[in-house]
């Protein structure tokens, strides 16, 4: 047992080294901008850059719309499958796994060919349409995570009883979903939302191929042209991802736990 513990510590230490050295190196590199001393100049330059603010704002907005679209598509479907159409579950689960099989670059390539300016549905003809297509593309990328989060949330509540109770009290379907089901799975939905945010905020492929002024293409552009700013941006991006994951963990403490799956 003693030697087992030694090996466990060794593996853990090696893993920790591999994961922390790049972070330390990036922090160190990002502070090297001023010659001969450490400073936060790179962060000042980045945060003060008007293009940083514009692209970051654009991506935050895109993320918010993606989350709204994702919730509108996933919550009714997941609810309805639990309540009435359990036979559709395998099909829906298969579809939600597809974005893990089909690379993002292929999906967006399909959009460009199918929804070009002279197609029946010319999303790409206008700026608004292209923005909408980007949000739609992001929603497909987030689909596996959103669906799983919401479905896990629904598993912990008694969907059927809640629905029947609401029906007895005279609620319509809109009321049931928005005022009974959604508040009960709100924490699960928020977990999915933060994960979506973390995925969308620095996404490069779709934004770049649709020519959108998003944060991902901006990052790439800075990386190709500057020395110290990219390191600062990497740290900022890491902090954002960390923030999203922490929020999910904090939220999960408030999540209801069902009797049959204590953990």
């Amino acid at each position, binding site marked *: 047992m003693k030697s087992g513990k030694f090996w466990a510590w060794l593996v853990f230490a090696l893993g920790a080294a591999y994961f922390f050295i790049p972070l330390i190196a990036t922090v*160190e590199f990002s502070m090297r901008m001023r010659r001969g001393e450490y400073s936060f100049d790179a962060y000042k330059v980045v945060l003060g850059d008007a293009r940083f603010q514009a692209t970051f704002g654009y991506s935050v907005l895109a993320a918010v719309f993606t989350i709204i679209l994702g919730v509108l598509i996933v919550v009714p*479907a997941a*609810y309805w499958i639990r309540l009435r159409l359990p036979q559709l579950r395998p099909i829906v689960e298969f*579809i939600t796994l*597809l974005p893990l*099989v089909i690379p993002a670059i292929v999906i967006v*390539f399909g959009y460009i060919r199918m929804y070009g300016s002279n197609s029946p549905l010319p999303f790409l003809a206008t700026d608004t349409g292209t923005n909408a297509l980007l949000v739609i593309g992001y929603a497909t990328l987030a689909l596996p995570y959103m669906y799983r989060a919401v479905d896990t949330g629904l598993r912990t509540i008694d969907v059927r009883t809640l629905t029947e109770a609401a029906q007895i009290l005279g609620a319509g379907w809109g009321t049931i979903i928005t005022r009974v089901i959604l508040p009960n799975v709100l924490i699960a939905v928020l977990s999915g939302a933060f994960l979506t945010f973390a995925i969308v905020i620095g996404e490069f492929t779709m934004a770049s*191929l649709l020519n959108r002024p998003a944060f*991902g293409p901006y990052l790439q552009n800075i990386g190709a042209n500057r020395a110290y700013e990219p390191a600062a941006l990497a740290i900022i991006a890491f902090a954002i991802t960390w923030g999203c994951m922490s929020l999910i963990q904090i939220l999960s403490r408030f999540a209801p736990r069902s009797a049959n799956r204590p953990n």
Partner: protein
Amino acid sequence: MTDISMSDHAVTGKTAPPAEARSMRLPTQWLGVAPFFIFAIMFLILPTLYLMLGAFQNEAGEFTFENIAALAQPSIIAAYWISIKVSLASSLIGAFAGLAIAIAIVRGGLPEWIRSATLTFSGVASNFAGVPLAFAFLATLGRLGLATVILNTLFGLNIYAHGFNILSFWGLTLTYVYFQIPLMVVIIVPAIDGLKKEWGEAAATLGATMAQYWRMVVIPVIWPSFLGTVILLFANAFGAIATAYALTGSSLNIVPILLYAQIRGDVLHNAHLGYAIAFGMIFITGLANVFYIWFRTRSERWLK
């Protein structure tokens, strides 16, 4: 006969809640899932099918295998080959390292806080991909990166003089491993948790040594979900572009970067060849995922 059908009808009539009344059934039954299916068909399935069909058509819209055959040119084969190599290497390294870390934190007798800290960090690092990850590795192992400089000044080891380059196969693999290991940890820890303590006790009671317990109990149980996750990691690396693009520009010609250049500027001078490349990517990740689903259904039998 009539008797049974009568009582059957009476029973269903009695237990059906008001909302399931016949007049309501058709519209409400499908309305809830309609947005999902319309969305999935329009923005996931049709665009993909469009490319897949396009891969088998020529400019005039006639059926042909020419585009698929044209994939056999050296530059495209080289791109597929390096993509497969990077994905395979990063998924195997990520999988074994991730498994070792998972076993260490679950079974290694380490303090509880290490387990939860590792899991939290894995959640973050598995999502820390794309362009920023490339920046982090340039700052670490680039020509002026911290690790490069320290190795050179403290140990006199100039890794670039020894043939290492961050813009190479190993550089890219080492970078991909940064999100592959945490993904493995996140997925495999529940599987290791699923190993029941009783099995170890039962094995010990029957006189099994530690090695026998591992060889005959642990590995057979973990094996399917481990192999399944390797395949998921493979697909994960195979479709990734942002990290590689930010790291190497177009100096390392992996398939997604080739396709990216083709979409941007038709560098292959044949639109349908682009479809064929996309088809090839889906074919490879799809094949990998068929195996994944198969292994997962096998492994879930043990994790009840």
